């Protein structure tokens, strides 16, 4: 009773009685009870209390309870069904007449009270501004809303080889990063060629993998190839990846508006066999663009490994400590700490696994398209004018559609406004009548 430990133990006696404590705490309390007569007596008295509570006889359910419930449930079901039948048809004419009354109310009241006209104008103005803003933002999202050709068309997003050639070096975030995959590639090698200039268009994989002793990289290659038969090339590419111990991660296979079939694949290939696989892939046709990137994740990898190691040591130490805990507070503190450390270990380990997977499997994003397409044909001025005109026609069509959608969107709020306005109008009239009387 005297020691603070007794107070802790007594807090937990109730849960102990029900076996609801974790094994460490249970052991601790058993030990305490065997040495502290006062707490043991307390435990016994609590046990008797619980036994009494458990033995208090249960009340019998009144005989008519179930019958009454059945009746009420049936009544409830009937009301719900009746409401469902009446609700829908009753509302619509109500709305329509309300709206009509609202409109005629506006006309009548303007003649009598100029301030009402001002208020109505203000409300209308708000509505118009809102509608305008709405239309503006809708317009921004209209696909192809680009009569002047400001936005890049889909084809132009394929980067041109000449522009991307060379080595762009971005400083990697070494040392502190513990998020996987968010680092910018610290080396980008882009090689590409338009038309027949693909002779030297192979990525310098040597430089990608060279200097790699003891370092760990995530390798990604982006490849666009023009080939004779896309479907055949696609199957061949998948077979190549699988033959090298890799797999196809995703496949997008479609025919675009001009009837051209395009396949876009993501292949995962073991880093060790990336070079031979790439060589084969290039053989599928004419290289349109090729870009390779490597991200140095050595520091990140070391960092994660070190963290996991440290946490493991910490866990060992805590497990020793928990056997020596002096009091409950310590025990709970250690237990909490253990749980936290375990969670962290698991989190870092899963990051490490993800990283390892990315390191061992390189990513090849492959786009296959029919030969001679997807480049940048120098369109003549006349062609461009015609194209712009066609685009504007398309955009007008879409705008029309959007206006219809906008009108449909506004119906709800307008009805609401109408009802509110009508209610207000009725209120004002009622008050005026009372004032007059």
């Amino acid at each position, binding site marked *: 009773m005297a020691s603070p430990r007794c107070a802790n133990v007594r807090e937990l006696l109730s849960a102990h009685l029900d076996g609801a404590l974790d094994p460490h705490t249970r052991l601790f309390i058993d030990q305490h009870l065997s040495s502290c007569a006062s707490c043991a007596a307390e435990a016994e*008295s609590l046990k008797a209390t619980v036994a009494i509570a458990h033995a208090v006889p249960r009340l019998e359910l009144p005989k008519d*309870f179930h019958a009454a419930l059945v009746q009420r449930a049936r009544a409830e079901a009937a009301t719900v069904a009746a409401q469902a039948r009446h609700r829908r048809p009753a509302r619509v004419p109500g709305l329509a007449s309300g709206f009509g009354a609202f409109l005629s109310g506006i006309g009548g009241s303007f003649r009598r009270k100029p301030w009402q006209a001002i208020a109505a104008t203000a409300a209308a103005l708000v509505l118009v501004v809102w509608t305008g803003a709405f239309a503006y933002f809708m317009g921004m999202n209209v696909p192809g809303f680009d009569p002047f050709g400001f936005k890049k068309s889909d084809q132009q997003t394929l980067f041109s080889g000449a522009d991307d050639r060379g080595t762009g070096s971005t400083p990697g975030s070494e040392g502190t990063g513990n998020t996987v995959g968010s680092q910018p590639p610290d080396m980008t090698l882009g090689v590409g060629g338009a038309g027949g200039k693909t002779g030297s268009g192979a990525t310098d994989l040597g430089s990608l993998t060279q200097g790699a002793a003891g370092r760990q990289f995530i390798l990604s290659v982006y490849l666009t190839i023009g080939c004779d038969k896309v479907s055949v090339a696609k199957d061949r590419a998948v077979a190549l990846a699988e033959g090298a111990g890799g797999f196809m991660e995703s496949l997008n296979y479609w025919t675009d508006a001009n009837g051209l079939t395009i396949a876009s694949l993501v292949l995962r290939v073991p880093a060790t066999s990336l070079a031979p696989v790439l060589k084969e892939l290039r053989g599928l046709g004419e290289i349109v663009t090729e870009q390779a990137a490597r991200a140095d994740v050595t520091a990140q990898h070391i960092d994660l490994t070190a963290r996991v190691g440290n946490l493991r040591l910490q866990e060992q130490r805590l497990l020793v400590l928990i056997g020596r805990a002096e009091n409950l507070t310590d025990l709970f503190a250690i237990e909490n700490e253990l749980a936290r450390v375990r969670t962290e270990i698991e989190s870092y380990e899963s990051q490490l696994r993800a990283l390892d997977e990315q390191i061992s499997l390189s990513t090849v994003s492959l786009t296959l398209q029919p030969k001679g397409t997807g480049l940048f044909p120098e369109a003549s001025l006349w062609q461009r004018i015609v194209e712009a005109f066609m685009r504007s026609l398309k955009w007008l069509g879409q705008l029309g559609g959007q206006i219809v959608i906008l009108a449909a969107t506004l119906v709800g709020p307008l009805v609401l406004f109408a009802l509110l306005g009508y209610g207000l109008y009725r209120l004002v009239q009622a008050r005026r009548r009372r004032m007059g009387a």
Partner: protein
Amino acid sequence: MNDRARESELIARAVSGDGDAFAELVQPFEAKVYNLACRMCGSREDAYDLAQEAFLKVYRALGRFKGDSSFSTWLYRVVANTCLDQIRRTRRSRAVLSLDAPVDTEGGSLRREPADASFDPEDAALRAEVQREVRAVVLQLAPDHRLAIVLRDFEDFSYEEIADTLGWNPGTVKSRISRARAALRDRLVERELLPRPGVYSAKGVDA
């Protein structure tokens, strides 16, 4: 598994407006819910109405039951909340009972000195005055503590079931049950319906 299938079939039928299916669905819970309501609000008449009301609430809300907990857990949650609402409503109209207020008991004939060696909790529980005290003490507890002890010791819920049903964390469940039991024990000791803890000696612990 078969019960589960039957249960979800009844739920589906009840949702689509079959009152009889609903009655069949909740019949196994009626006695428990009635007892729970009785312990929570103290009078049989109130408990009857409260239990009926709780079941109707369950019926109305059944369409929102998504099956992410078991049906019984969900049902008891609705019932528990109905009870708590009822207690809050009546507390506003009635005077709040204090934990220190003396409990109404008939006469002074309760002064039986229980002999520690022969004390039998189950025997004690059958005595009317013990039952009355237990009921009275439970009714004086704060609603949350009351709910905790009623579910644990009268309705035999596990700690996990209580935590799931009421959405409390495990520590809260433990401490509320512990507080409620301590209050019950103190009251029984005070009324001399339970031996004072000191009566036991260390060696007599497993009596």
